[in-house]
């Protein structure tokens, strides 16, 4: 008998669901599973409390209040900043974690639980970028050269998913769904690899393709997410080089062993566009599929979809 444990909670501006597949478990085992899921969900709350730009008490906001001197930070803040900075360097700034003020100005400035406007008090000069960040791995400090607001939106949720996945690992078969970014551990209730659909960017209930995966994260960045929020009519994924929404793609899906990598690289590939995006993903050794607004399909060599390419879509490689 399958006995399923499913918990859904609102977290980090989205809905997080954890599913654990159980087979013939007894009551103590069920209690243990339940406790594990609670611990896994706590990671989301902890990462949010640390890395949110919407919470004036977050460690991220405290860090951004100090300019021009090294600030010692926790591992939970240092690691996502270090990773985001590396992605920014690799994309020559198409992806940039220092766009917080720009995002606020574009209307992405509301705390999701209360709906209250949560603008950072930091007045950011024009032209700030990832080059204004300096990290010291030995001392675990971050130095911000000019006033700016960090936006770890593309990495923090992935980090929380990875921490939750590590917690859930001993349970074997589990799934984490954080608003369409998923981590699939082991197998589904049928004992088979998890099937994951890639959402059609223009039709909420349609899939473009289906993949079969195990022990990986699958993250998608789409121009349809948080639609209607931006005051400039754009969407939430910036090409920070030009300071506006990236327009060459409608969605970018990445499969990687870690959600932080899949999430950030999907956002970066989206910002880079189809050709540069595929080259970037292949250089990082991850699999991905990108769709243009006209539904042209671009896939990395390692991306295997086990269903047919959608009718009418052109296929490009590399």
């Amino acid at each position, binding site marked *: 008998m399958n006995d399923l444990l499913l918990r*859904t909670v609102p977290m980090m501006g989205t*809905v997080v669901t954890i599913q654990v597949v159980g087979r013939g478990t007894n009551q103590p085992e069920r209690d243990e599973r339940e406790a594990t899921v609670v611990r896994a969900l706590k990671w989301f709350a902890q990462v949010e409390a640390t890395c949110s730009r919407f919470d004036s008490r977050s460690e991220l906001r405290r860090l951004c209040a100090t300019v021009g001197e090294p600030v010692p930070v926790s591992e939970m803040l240092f690691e996502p900043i270090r990773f985001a900075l590396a992605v920014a360097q690799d994309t020559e700034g198409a992806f940039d974690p220092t766009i917080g003020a720009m995002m606020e100005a574009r209307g992405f400035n509301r705390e999701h639980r209360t709906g209250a406007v949560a603008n950072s008090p930091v007045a950011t000069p024009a032209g700030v970028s990832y080059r204004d960040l300096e990290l010291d791995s030995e001392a675990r400090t971050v130095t911000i050269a000019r006033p700016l607001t960090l936006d770890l939106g593309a990495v923090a949720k992935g980090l929380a998913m990875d921490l939750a996945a590590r917690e859930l690992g001993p349970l074997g078969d589990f799934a984490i769904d954080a608003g369409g970014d998923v981590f699939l551990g082991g197998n*589904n209730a049928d004992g088979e690899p998890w099937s*994951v659909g890639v959402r059609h960017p223009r039709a909420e*209930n349609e*899939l473009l393709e289906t993949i079969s995966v195990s022990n990986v994260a699958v993250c998608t960045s*789409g121009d349809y997410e948080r639609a209607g929020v931006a005051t400039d009519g754009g969407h939430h994924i910036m090409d920070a080089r030009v300071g506006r929404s990236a327009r060459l793609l409608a969605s970018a899906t990445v499969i990687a062993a870690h959600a932080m990598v899949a999430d950030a690289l999907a956002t970066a590939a989206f910002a880079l566009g189809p050709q540069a995006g595929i080259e970037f993903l292949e250089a990082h050794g991850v699999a991905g599929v990108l769709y243009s607004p006209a539904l042209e399909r671009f896939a990395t060599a390692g991306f295997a979809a086990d269903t047919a390419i959608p009718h009418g879509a052109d296929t490009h490689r590399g």
Partner: protein
Amino acid sequence: MASVPAAKPSAEAAHSADPPAPKWKDGTYYGWGTSRHGDIQAAVVIQGGRIANAMISQCLTRYSCSWIAALPPQVIGRQSPEVDYVSGATQSTNAFYYAVLEALNRAK
């Protein structure tokens, strides 16, 4: 989106010579779903082992429930999710979806 355990695609069942035993027991079942907009309770009616109706029975949201009013027929039409999860699915419909899934888990 979450899987309905042991549920095979309905198309397969429809083409099978010997229809499998109904995967859900008849009755009305309730489940809760949570979204950034608040909590939603779904009521799912199972008749003859299939979803006959799915509706929003309670809505504890900060906004009107009308934004998801169009969903129930889609759920009935699909019978069960064709995949375990959808990458890129955003949260707008998930509250109702998860509420239906929770209700269906009780129908086993």
